[in-house]
């Protein structure tokens, strides 16, 4: 009993000191993380509020997504593309999906704008790229209803057709050649 007490008395200060150091390290590490995240969040808030903030390639994913969103809603798609490429192959599936969908949405909106003024040719590649973006997003997460819905829109704008064999019930060849059907419910502008 007294041996145990003796042992306890000897081990006690060392144990306390170790616990103290470990706890301080934990506090320092997590505190630094919180502080860095706080700064990142301030930058994200700036971007969401519409003020451009330079973001480098190694910035946290959430900040890169904020910058991507900032660019896509301003139609700066060429600048947004590399960010989306990076996020799409990153570890964070949620960020990858968000990046793919936001960029695809921007392309779909641009295509709809072009179609509203009857510019069909520039709209087609936009729709195709948007379609690919939605498909990649859905491949990562098949439960994304908004992506399904928007993909359905793009599919009706420019339908997919079998590449090699065209079966009898598909549309006639001249339509597949143009890869363009019709635009239900969309104003075509003046005749």
């Amino acid at each position, binding site marked *: 009993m007294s041996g145990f007490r003796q042992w306890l008395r000897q081990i006690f200060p060392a144990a306390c000191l170790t616990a103290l150091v470990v706890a301080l390290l934990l*506090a320092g590490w997590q505190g630094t993380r919180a502080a860095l995240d706080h700064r990142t969040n301030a930058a*994200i808030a700036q971007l969401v509020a519409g003020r451009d903030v330079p973001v480098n390639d190694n910035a946290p994913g959430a900040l890169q997504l904020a910058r991507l969103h900032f660019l896509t809603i301003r139609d700066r798609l060429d600048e947004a593309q590399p960010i989306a490429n990076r996020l799409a192959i990153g570890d964070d599936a949620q960020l990858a999906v968000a990046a793919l969908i936001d960029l695809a949405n921007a392309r779909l*909106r641009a295509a709809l704008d072009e179609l509203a003024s009857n510019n069909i040719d520039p709209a087609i590649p936009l729709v195709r790229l948007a379609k690919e973006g939605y498909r990649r997003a859905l491949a990562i997460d098949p439960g994304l209803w908004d992506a399904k*819905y928007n993909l359905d*829109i793009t599919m009706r704008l420019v339908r997919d057709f079998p590449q090699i064999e065209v079966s009898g019930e598909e549309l006639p060849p001249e339509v597949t050649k143009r890869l363009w059907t019709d635009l239900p419910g969309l104003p075509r502008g003046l005749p």
Partner: protein
Amino acid sequence: MAARARWVLIGVGLLAAMGAARADDVTLYAPRPFGYVIGDTITLSADVALDPSLKIDPASLPQPRPVDYWLDLKAVRLTDRGTREGARRYRLDLVYQTFYAPLEPKRLVIPALALAAVSDDRRVELAIPPWSFVMSPLREIAGGSGEAMTPRPDIMPRPIATRRALMLSFIGLALAALGAALIGWQRGWWPFHRRRDRPFLRAARSVRAAVGLSPPDYDTALLALHRAFDATAGERVFAEDLDAFLAAHPGFEPARHDIARLFTASRDVFFAAEAGAAQQELPAERLAELAARLRAIERMAA
């Protein structure tokens, strides 16, 4: 001779028939065949039972790939379930994802898949049968309103959650404070310095040690207790100062009688040199008990 050859032939024929029957045994477990929309995944599972000498040829397994312009094969999992009831059994899971965008409910077909099973000397073709299902449209066919052509909104960027890091940081700080407090308590640093000043604790230890000797060191034990009274009062305490001491430290009042006996005994020992009388008045064991009692009083008062 001829009869024997016929028997062997019949046996081979039986074996071949059994092998063929087993090798053909592919059972497809499919999910509901309706109610799919664009982007849904469909998992087809097939149970394959083979002649025990056969193995599925891994090279014949389909690779994840686009099967059709609207259909992707996303994953292929083959599970070997061992040999049971005279057949080697496999489970083959095929995960497809459909990207067909129908304008009205439409029946589509997932095509058949060919597999091969091999043994040392033969190769058997297997087929996972085709499977058809109905896909449903997600949106109405747009009429006059632009509603159906309005894309769903973006996924908005969200701030990083800092709660966890903050919480862990605070927990770390709290633990560090606790550790520092424990060390301070043990070392008697501020604000635990008062704790160190427990003279009767020290005295009780000395008394116990002194009484434990043989023969008991009665004088040392008495002296230790006197030093404790002195330290507690902050000055020398003699028998005639007892009232003043008890007035200043009322916690010791219940032990007044014993304390008085202690002072009597100590006078006998140190001034009258009557150690025998003193030990009769207050035997060594009683001295240890008294010291323990005083220590307890001190602890209560602290």
